[in-house]
């Protein structure tokens, strides 16, 4: 048998992927971010009702490195980034792999507006022409990206307004089926001001009750990154973890231990903002790939 030709054909995208990762590293290093590595296998994740872990010998593969990243912030590391693999059980589709690559970065004494600016600068560095060709779209990166609140996005695109969708339990369905496809089509969109109950680790907005300082970045209808002004109120954090963990256990999911070390150190954490960006999806956008399978050498089905 000759070599695996389908794998050979991925070479141009895998070469571009390697260059993209190098550019990302240089972006953060120039800004004095420290690159760190935290354990992939941990006793438990930050509890979230709809993110399921993969077990590993009594512990869990991490679904995101956020708890360890914030413990580093609390210990005085002011600018941090990490490029790592994360695992989420059952997530497989044209934009999902159960094992995927994540870029996370955190900045002390900043809020989520700082991260919006950095997203704009990072994407412009990766696309020097300022025009991103993806499918039949031509997305303008040169102007400030669109800022759109969740409430306004629902008014424009959903079948229900935001309050109705929340009460009826149809928020995710409306967002996925009716709102997301419209976002980030002409220029990237920051979807901002999430309802507090949808932002377990985000700080509440100082002047707008019921709203958290969380945004998601969308490009070409694709969710690319999720960011918060981080919650630093230990009691509030414990309360929100309890709510999420109760939901998880009611759904029969494997229990997480309460992340006591994280909660204890959280009181020492400075005001900070943090963001998680799907690296495979970013590579999809930059290499004009329709499926996440095209930007990784080995999707799980081919192992």
């Amino acid at each position, binding site marked *: *048998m*000759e070599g695996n*030709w*389908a794998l*050979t*054909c*991925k*070479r*141009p995208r895998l070469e571009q992927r390697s260059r993209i990762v190098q550019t990302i590293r240089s972006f953060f290093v120039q800004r004095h971010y420290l690159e760190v590595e935290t354990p992939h296998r941990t006793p438990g994740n930050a509890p*979230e009702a*709809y*993110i399921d872990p993969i077990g590993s010998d009594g512990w869990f593969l991490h679904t995101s490195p956020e708890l360890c990243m914030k413990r580093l912030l609390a210990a005085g590391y002011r600018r941090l980034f990490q490029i790592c693999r994360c695992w989420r059980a*059952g*997530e*497989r*589709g*044209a*934009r*999902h792999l159960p094992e995927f690559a994540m870029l996370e970065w955190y900045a002390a004494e900043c809020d989520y507006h700082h991260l919006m600016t950095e997203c704009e600068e990072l994407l412009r560095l990766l696309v020097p022409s300022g025009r991103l060709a993806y499918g039949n779209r031509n997305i303008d990166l040169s102007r400030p990206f669109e800022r759109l609140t969740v409430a306004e996005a629902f008014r424009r695109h959903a079948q229900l307004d935001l309050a109705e969708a929340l009460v009826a339990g149809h*928020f*995710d*369905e409306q*967002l*996925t*089926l009716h709102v*997301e496809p419209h976002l980030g089509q002409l220029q990237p969109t920051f979807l901002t001001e999430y309802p507090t109950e*949808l*932002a*377990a680790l985000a700080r509440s907005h100082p002047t707008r009750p019921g709203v958290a300082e969380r945004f*998601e970045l969308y490009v070409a209808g694709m*969710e690319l990154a*999720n960011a918060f002004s981080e919650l630093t109120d230990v009691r509030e954090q414990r309360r929100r973890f309890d709510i999420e963990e109760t939901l998880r256990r009611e759904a029969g999911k494997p229990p997480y231990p309460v992340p006591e070390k994280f909660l204890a150190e959280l009181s020492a954490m400075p005001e900070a903002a943090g963001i*998680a960006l799907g690296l495979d999806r970013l590579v999809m956008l930059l290499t004009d790939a329709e499926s996440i399978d095209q930007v990784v050498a080995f999707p799980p089905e081919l192992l």
Partner: protein
Amino acid sequence: MLSTSDLRKGTKLMIDGEPHVIVQFDFTKPGKGQALYKCKLRNMISGSLFDRTYRSGETFEPATLQECDMQFLYRDESGYVFMDQKSYEQVTLPEEALGEQKYFLVDNMEVKILMFGERGIGITLPNFVNLRVTQSEPWVKGDTAAGNNKPATVASGYTLQVPSFVEEGTLIQIDTRTGEYVTRVKE
């Protein structure tokens, strides 16, 4: 019962007492939110296509269809004719029931016929089939870059992408589940 994690292209479900097959599937999920499973389904009896979106927690009755080992005999105006090698009973499937699979049928190929009562409503092919390239542009000398491809048509009339070094007359192996080139076959 099946759960949403069993849904994928090719999964067969009973809906309103009739077998359906998922012909297109996508998993979507807001990072922090609930998953949705978007399916295009084909009613295996009527052939009609429709879209359905399912949410986590829903359950499904699997369509357990009787499968019969049969051999492909020939094609005529009524459709594709298969025969059970033991009972010599014959079953005819209309072209619509095969879709793209018709391109991967080779004379005397042993396949599984999915039965609904006495009726053949679908077919399971071997995972790989060998077909000869009948038409493809010649290889351009000097074009040695890895992963270069070109279209080629095989004996059944099916067109697919192949590596540029594959020439007319070459026997190639195709994955019948994806319709993609796998390798050249040594003769």
